[in-house]
């Protein structure tokens, strides 16, 4: 705990991606964790993660999920273990 999570939101800027960023920020805040959130909109970069369906969430270079926008509660659950 206490270590900074490096979070990346992969997406081309559609409403789903914006929603995912919002929920991720909420989840981080509720967990009380420190993090650095970066938005990746470059297609080649998105594909370099092996992700084809956006939006996707990457934490510390690991793809957590792609192609959906889970609820804040679910995002919290997924981030808890990291």
């Amino acid at each position, binding site marked *: 705990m206490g270590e900074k999570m490096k979070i990346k939101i992969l997406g*081309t800027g559609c409403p789903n991606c914006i929603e995912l960023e919002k929920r991720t920020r909420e989840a981080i805040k509720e967990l009380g964790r420190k993090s650095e959130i970066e938005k990746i909109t470059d297609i080649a970069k998105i594909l370099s993660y092996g992700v*084809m369906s956006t939006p996707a969430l990457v934490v510390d270079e690991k793809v957590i999920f792609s192609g959906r926008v889970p609820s804040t509660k679910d995002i919290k659950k997924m981030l808890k273990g990291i």
Partner: protein
Amino acid sequence: MDLFYPLQAFVDWLIYGVLELSSDTMLGGAVNFFIFDSIKILILLAVIIFSISYIRTYLSPEKIRNILSRRFEFLGNMTASSIGIFTPFCSCSAVPLFIGFVESGVPLGVTFSYLIAAPLINEVAAALLWGMFGWQIALLYVASGWLISVFAGYILGKMKLEKYVEDYVWKIKMKNSQKQGKKNFRERSGEAISETKSIIKKVFPYVLIGIAIGALIHGYAPENLLAEIAGKGNLLAVPIAVLIGVPLYSNAAGVIPIVSSLMEKGLPLGTALAFMMSVVALSLPEMIILRKVLKIKLLAIYVAIVALAIIFTGYLFNLIL
């Protein structure tokens, strides 16, 4: 027996018994129609979206890509269109999907079959058609959408259009996707339920508005309003219906209930179906997004072939039904 008979009995009891509206008045009939249709469509939407979302948890784009890169033409087009039924995708995913498919060796025509089927065969539209026209029409819609994607993709593949794909697409190298872990039944249904909730929340207001407008047309518009101007005799009606559908993208939910009432006023089924397909399959934002990977010429050919296939389907159903 009609599956929804118990619901109709309940709504009848509620409107005529509890609220004491008369079934003979326009108001009683309209309120009954509105409440029964809304509940019925809500149930169908929930069941269909849940089933599709559940199946989709087995079909990640990465898996689809692996399946399709091993298929060849025609069989590949058929597989791609079938998968497209279960994977409605956010149009913003079109570009990474397109590049990911092409990069891994999925033939261009097969990629197009998928890109056409995914938005064209739309689960919300299928649920609404089932609710308002019966399962036969819903099935007809899915089957003809499938055929359109297979053949349009096949023709596009035969035309050897690779040179009209933007050059940078061929240069991108994709990393193999990271394994996202196996999911159990609870996780899959959890995902499907949250997906169902978010889709219904998004489309249901449009459905209600659509049903309300539909109810007004049902009650007040003159009979045979459209039989004269948009009937089977008018060959221009189908292409015009397809054109009107283009700017109405993403509003299939609101459009279908209105179309349903227009059919009572003489709009033929083929024209109505072509119109609805154009609403879901041809959208300006998606074209703008696809422009990032397709040169203008290919984009134009793509749109033209899909539009022609839809128009052809419209004529066909007007002719045989």
